[in-house]
């Protein structure tokens, strides 16, 4: 038998029995791999566990207190209870405190319908907040055209901090101050715009609430209205896999996920993440243009293609196929490059074809 295999007994919400995992995994990882639900908030599979939110707490027999499953190493023979009354009540109180110390009006929030806090509150059947607080609203960081930071919706899960430091290794943001004044801050509390932020958007992509949102996407469509189309970034040669989020024939935002297989494991950079607005720019070419006496006029496809065919044919007959040359494109698809190569060689009869590879 594989000595790395461990067995845990689980009393779950709707599960009772034994599950297997590997040595070195946390309790949460074993449970998740076996599709057993435990609520989490600060945990994110892309980064090391933090153990800060206490939503993933469980009871483990012969262990004192309520250990967070996300940071507790799984040990062979453990007996884990994920949904005892005690556990449930603590989780509920944690959530109510989070609601009291913030401004979570879901009606006014971009993330409604795609918010882990909202889902958790619902899951725990919270109807009203028992705690009174003197919470004072904090100012937004709306300094740039890409990311809006609303500290009033922040649950201090620290995911954004770890995403910035551990995933993209930029280290732009951190948890500042202590106690009830805690907040996520850049160095010296600068706005994101003036900080070292490179606007990769990683922090936004992992934020479980509406504290970090993509500004260009705001009010452009509800999560459930967006159609996601997976594709390959058009900028650099990394070939990041991304999802274009579409509503009404418009790209509303660009997302990715570590669950999509690809060279980027869900990471993007500013160009792939935010540089898509040119797609619907009014300057886009919309019809063929033919130059007449120095100026362009609009033409139909039929007219433009007939003209090109006729001119190319004349030049080929008069000066030979090698008097015609093609620039194909490192921007176009493989299929298009192939077709242009075929066109140059089979239709015109020249090898005069090259592109910007060297540039």
């Amino acid at each position, binding site marked *: 038998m594989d000595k790395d295999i461990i067995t845990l007994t689980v009393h779950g919400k709707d599960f009772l029995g034994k599950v297997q995992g590997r040595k070195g995994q946390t309790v949460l990882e074993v449970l998740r791999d076996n599709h057993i639900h435990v609520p989490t908030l600060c945990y994110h599979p892309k980064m090391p566990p933090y153990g800060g939110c206490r939503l993933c707490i469980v009871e483990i027999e012969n262990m004192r207190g309520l250990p967070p499953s996300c940071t507790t190493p799984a040990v062979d023979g453990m007996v884990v209870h994920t949904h005892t009354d005690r556990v449930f009540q603590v989780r509920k109180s944690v959530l109510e405190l989070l609601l009291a110390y913030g401004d979570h009006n879901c009606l006014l929030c971009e993330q409604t319908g795609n918010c882990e806090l909202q889902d958790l509150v619902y899951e725990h059947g919270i109807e009203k907040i028992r705690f009174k607080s003197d919470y004072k609203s904090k100012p937004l960081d709306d300094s740039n055209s890409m990311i809006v930071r609303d500290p009033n919706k922040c649950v201090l899960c620290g995911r954004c901090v770890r995403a910035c430091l551990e995933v993209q290794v930029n280290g732009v943001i951190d948890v500042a101050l202590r106690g009830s004044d805690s907040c996520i801050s850049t160095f010296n509390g600068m706005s994101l715009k003036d900080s070292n932020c490179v606007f990769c958007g990683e922090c936004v992509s992992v934020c479980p609430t509406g504290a970090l949102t993509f500004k260009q996407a705001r009010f452009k469509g509800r999560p459930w209205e967006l159609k996601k189309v997976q594709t390959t970034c058009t900028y650099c*040669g990394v070939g990041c896999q991304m999802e274009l989020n579409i509503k009404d024939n418009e790209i509303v935002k660009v997302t990715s996920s570590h669950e999509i*297989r690809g060279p980027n494991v869900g990471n*993007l950079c500013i*160009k792939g993440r935010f540089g898509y607005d040119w797609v619907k720019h009014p300057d886009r070419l919309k019809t063929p243009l033919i130059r007449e006496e120095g100026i362009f006029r609009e033409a139909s496809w039929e007219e433009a293609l007939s003209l090109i065919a006729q*001119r190319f044919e004349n030049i080929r007959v008069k000066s030979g196929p090698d008097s*015609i040359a093609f620039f194909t494109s*490192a921007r176009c*698809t493989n299929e298009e490059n192939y077709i242009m190569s075929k066109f140059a060689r089979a239709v015109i009869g020249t090898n*005069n074809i090259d592109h910007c590879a*060297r540039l």
Partner: protein
Amino acid sequence: MTNSIEELEKADVILVAGSNTTGMHPVIASTIKRAVRSGKTKVVVVDPRKIELVNHAELWLRPKPGTDVAWLNGLMHVIINEDLHAKGYIAERTEGFEDLKQAVSTYSPERVEEISGIPKADLIEAARLYAKAPAASIIYAMGITQHINGTDGVKSVANLAMLCGNVGIEGGGVNPLRGQNNVQGACDMGGLPNVFSGYQPVTSKEVREKMGRAWGVESLPEKPGLTIVEIVDGAVKGDIKAMYIMGENPVVSDPDSHHVRRGLNSLDFLVVQDIFLNRTARLADVVLPACCFAEKDGTFTNTERRVQLVRKAVEPPGDARPDWEILCDLARHMGYPMSYPNASAIFDEIASLTPSYAGMDYARLADGGLQWPCPSKDHPGTKYLHKDGFARGKGLFHGIEWISPAEGTDEKYPFLLTTGRVLYQYHTGTMSRRSVALNERYPECLVEINEEDAERLGIKSGDKIRVSSRRGRIEATASVGDSVDLGTIFIPFHFAEVPVNELTIAALDPIAKIPEFKVCAVRVEMVGEE
């Protein structure tokens, strides 16, 4: 890349040479930074500019621009001298070692310091770091290739990797990073004057017959065609009469723009097919509107040879059509039957004619893509090349001598200009300059100049300065700092209104025909002075 992006996290040492990775390939840069953070990997940066990765590097060597072959030879000199080379690997898998040994023998650290400005001790340390690592990867980009001796630079990189047994192992390799999204694919598909798809030479009768049969033509031209720069020369001379430019903007991207414009203006007939009326399109006789990546299906091949799907997400504006549809339609107008129901059918034809793509189809590419070579439907693709030896049998060392850049500095033109890219803009800027977000970050062309030089010339950040070379002059805003070394300046080429390629030199590497963008001599002065 011989190896894969994910393998960077398995390398013990990564040598990053002439690649501003955080700017040009940000997601790869993150991978490298994560590797460093994990404690496993050490990074050695070799770059004339103080790039961001320097902050994560064990060691930074700052060579003078145009001295790559010299410092690469220097590294190899030290490695052989200290007996750190992979003798077993060299004996078993390579040939020409004596040649190499001979060639690098004169590149002592002292001499290399003289040529490149890299302190002797740093060179030795870098050599030891690289040579002693169980798996070491070399990453490079245009900083190495865009020189008159760029092919030599690439060969030298390969020499170094083979010398230490780093080719054909996981986490190692020779890894050029491709600038534009589908440079790899454009080359793979035969967008080159001498080869069909899969690098099958046009000079081979057998290959021509195979392609001819598939394409339904009796014969295909056997003489290799002209390269970009030769095409432009041909146009200037009148040998090239007509051109069809798809998705490129050579007036801004190519060296010596005056010359390019003259060439295009001399043509009898120019067709440009693009998504915007860029500077090149403005010179055309006919402009055709194309779809952008979000409006069509297809595939791109990334820098690690991974073929991945591009999917249509939105409808194109107006009458714009996918590039392949336009070309097929034009072929029909010229009496050649060419039609496909969709992009997937074109891909199937590619696979049937291209051995390295033979095992691929859209269904197989849907989840994570496939890395070529992928010769059959049951082949999983190839994570790293040369695992079981080199294609030609044995890896060949090339003894290479350093030659100085085509244009040196003198009293009249005392600065070395290097050109390149910045994170927030892309290529000739046709897309990125129309993005609100990207422009907010980098709205105008900045000339990076060293603080000491700037002080001597009385230049402050934000000042308008003029940069002139033997070919032209441009004006732009100065950015003073320590990102560039004394005596050098850096200008990105994304800005059509600051056409830096009016300054650059069209001197070509004799083999790869890559223009020498990275080095030319210029003068810098405040606007208003003469």
